[in-house]
């Protein structure tokens, strides 16, 4: 059993003239929480979907849990938990029915009741998905990813659009998953989220890796803060390296 949860080397993906991912290489250890940071259009989603086996790269090599998508897709799907950015679960099904449906696809995993407890949705067990708040929907979506007790969890912008309380609730769930030895890859454009959750972060821009280290080490590269009242953040790291802000608001 190797110590590597997944790795990719020289990933390339282009859509027509647009290069979405341009020679990206990453290696993530088991038990790590790894963040993929960057502005919209940086190639985060394309990268994570290649790792999830949903897209095929034009060039480069991917290995997940020591296996390759081409030869071990079914086995990999049994061992991965995946949450996609834009999925809308079926409105007319209840929380419990949705989880039971996803649970039926896995050979092993959590009981539905256990999972409802884990994501704090016991009170919503019989509620239709359409009646859930944004934060509840997102926790259900993460629960669907956790249902097979995965070794590795892929999350694509799990807290985008959530209020601060819902975000912290979701962070708690992810921290519990890690405490049980799980590995996480998440994409985000929230710097504070990466600083709180991730052991290491890769900052990507225009499909290229521009920095990779622990959040602390990256912030340290900024040197002394120029403005006394302002502590260095990953946002500043991105600014220092690209001359642009992460989120143009």
């Amino acid at each position: 059993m190797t110590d590597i949860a997944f790795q990719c080397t020289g990933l390339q993906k282009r859509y027509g003239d647009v290069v979405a991912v341009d020679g990206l290489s990453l290696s993530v250890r088991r038990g790590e929480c790894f963040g993929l940071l960057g502005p919209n259009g940086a190639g985060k989603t394309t990268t994570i979907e290649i790792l999830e086996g949903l897209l095929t790269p034009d060039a480069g090599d991917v290995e997940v849990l020591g296996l390759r998508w081409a030869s071990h897709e079914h086995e990999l799907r049994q061992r991965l938990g995946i949450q996609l950015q834009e999925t809308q679960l079926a409105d007319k099904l209840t929380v419990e029915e949705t989880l039971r449906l996803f649970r039926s696809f896995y050979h092993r995993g959590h009981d539905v009741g256990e999972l409802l407890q884990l994501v704090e949705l016991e009170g919503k067990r019989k509620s239709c998905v359409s009646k859930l708040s944004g934060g509840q929907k997102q926790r259900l979506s993460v629960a669907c990813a956790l249902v097979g007790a995965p070794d590795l969890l892929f999350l694509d912008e799990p807290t985008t659009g959530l209020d601060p309380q819902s975000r912290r609730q979701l962070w708690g769930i992810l921290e519990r998953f890690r405490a049980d030895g799980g590995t996480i890859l998440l994409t985000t454009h929230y710097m504070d989220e990466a600083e709180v959750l991730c052991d290491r972060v890769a900052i990507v821009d225009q499909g290229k890796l521009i920095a990779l280290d622990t959040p602390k080490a990256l912030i340290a590269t900024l040197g002394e803060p120029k403005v006394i009242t302002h502590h260095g953040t990953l946002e500043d790291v991105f600014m220092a390296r690209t001359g642009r802000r992460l989120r143009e608001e």
Partner: protein
Amino acid sequence: MNRGGASHPLVELTLARLREIFREPEALFWAFIFPILMSVAMAVAFPSSGSAPVAVGIRQGDGADALRAALAASKAFAPRIVSAADEARALRDGEVDLVLVPGTPPTYRFDPARAESRAARLALDDALKRTAGRADPWTAPEEHISLPGSRYVDWLIPGLVGMGIIATSVWGIAFSIVQARLRKLLKRMVASPMRRSHYLLAQVLARLLFLLPEVGVPLIFGRYVIGMPLRGSLVTLAIVSLVGALSCGGIGLLAASRTKTFEAISGLVNLILLPMWIASGVFFSASRFPPALQPFVQALPLTALVDALRAVILEGASLASRQVATELAILAAWGIVPFVIALKIFRWR
């Protein structure tokens, strides 16, 4: 295998689809209420006995009232006075089959392309000449019989049942898949270890449950309210309906295999279904099309389904009969070929 309280994925997927349908009031209307309304409408439009009198319009003018009174005395006619201005409209709308212009001799105005009008002309001509004192060389005795199964309505009901089966199959499956694709739910499903064939099969299985009301309600109405004969066995009928629904499920899958918007799928499904409403002999016999077109018309899935249903219901044909076997083979081909193509080209995201 430990599924943590869940059943087999095919069962869960089918249940999920059924729940979605049953929690959608519109879907229930089409599956359960619509067949009842349609049957009631047919029962009203086609009373089970008696023949309707010939609707004759008499142009206003000298002698019109006398003619009307003379014709009204016979039960075979339903005469009414029409003004010259209103005449064309009354004929066009089918309110009257023929307009009689009083005179010596009178004039018959009608469109010879309409079968009802030609029949009205014969009946009226005969009645008027006999009243005028025509001496017939002999009068043939008439034996009035009513053969169940030979009326238009008896022939129409199996056609409507076939049309319902194919419409629900294609619409239901195509829409549900396009919706899941739009919501990125399909993509999420294939990111899980779900087997793709299970998903597609569940769509078809869930659809089959609606066969019972869809086929049953019009047939019960047809049999007990309208007096349509039901000569074949119910088992044969169930098998033909099942094969028809499965077959058209494949077409629904194919239509939805790459479609990304509701607009596109509506257009596509209409393009598939509407020509068949006309060509497949639901409302008038498909044999009216010229011989050159017959191979195409006969190869349509709805033609095969409607012909098989009529053979079983009206003629009591069994599965072993050559006609039913041929139609089922055509339906099976329509089920398998599109299903295989759909699996190959299906876009899961």
